[in-house]
């Protein structure tokens, strides 16, 4: 599965997107995997995950073809 990265997450991963294992079945599993692979994420104020352009709770299942984005702390406006 491909995951889009923004802001400081691009710096942490040193890339604009990321391919994650297909077996990550929900948002919570993705979050746990990311924190293991990129411990620098633990220093962020908060990280949200968006699925198909909407904020998703950890329990939300991930399906092939979903548009997944990692949303580090916002600073628009």
């Amino acid at each position, binding site marked *: 599965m491909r995951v*889009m990265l*923004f*802001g*400081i997450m691009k*710096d942490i991963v040193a890339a604009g997107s990321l391919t994650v294992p297909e077996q990550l079945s929900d948002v919570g599993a993705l979050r746990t995997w990311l924190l293991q692979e990129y411990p620098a994420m633990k*220093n*962020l*104020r908060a990280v949200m995950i*968006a699925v198909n*352009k*909407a*904020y998703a709770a950890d329990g939300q299942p991930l399906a092939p073809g979903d548009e997944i*984005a990692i*949303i*580090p*702390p*916002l*600073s*628009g*406006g």
Partner: protein
Amino acid sequence: MEHWISIADSITVQEAIDFVQSPASGGIVTFTGTVRNQTQQKSVHKLFFECYEPMAVLELEKIAKAAGEKWPVQRMALLHVKGEKLPGEVVVVIAVAAAHRAAAFEACQFAIDTLKETVPIWKKEFFDDGEVWVAAHP
């Protein structure tokens, strides 16, 4: 309630007011955010706004819809820039027209407060001695 949402390289207050103004409205409230030249005593040279644009548009739509349900507003414009900006340049504009001014003030403040909490846009500040993604760390 009519609304206009735009994420663009450059935005103006006037275009937002031109959209919301109508002879039926009694008052227009706008909020305009500009690039400050200082953050915590450090001089800011420029900013860069990154935007997850399709989702940002949807979140701005949600704000307009929620404001229209909470207050009797007639028209709203929600504009945000992307890309590089210099101190003094406009980065965000909210304009709200309503028959009564209290509703326009409340809806405008709600919109900018919510935008900062929910719209996927990130700001990087460039200083003499480096750069930082704003508010990323506690």
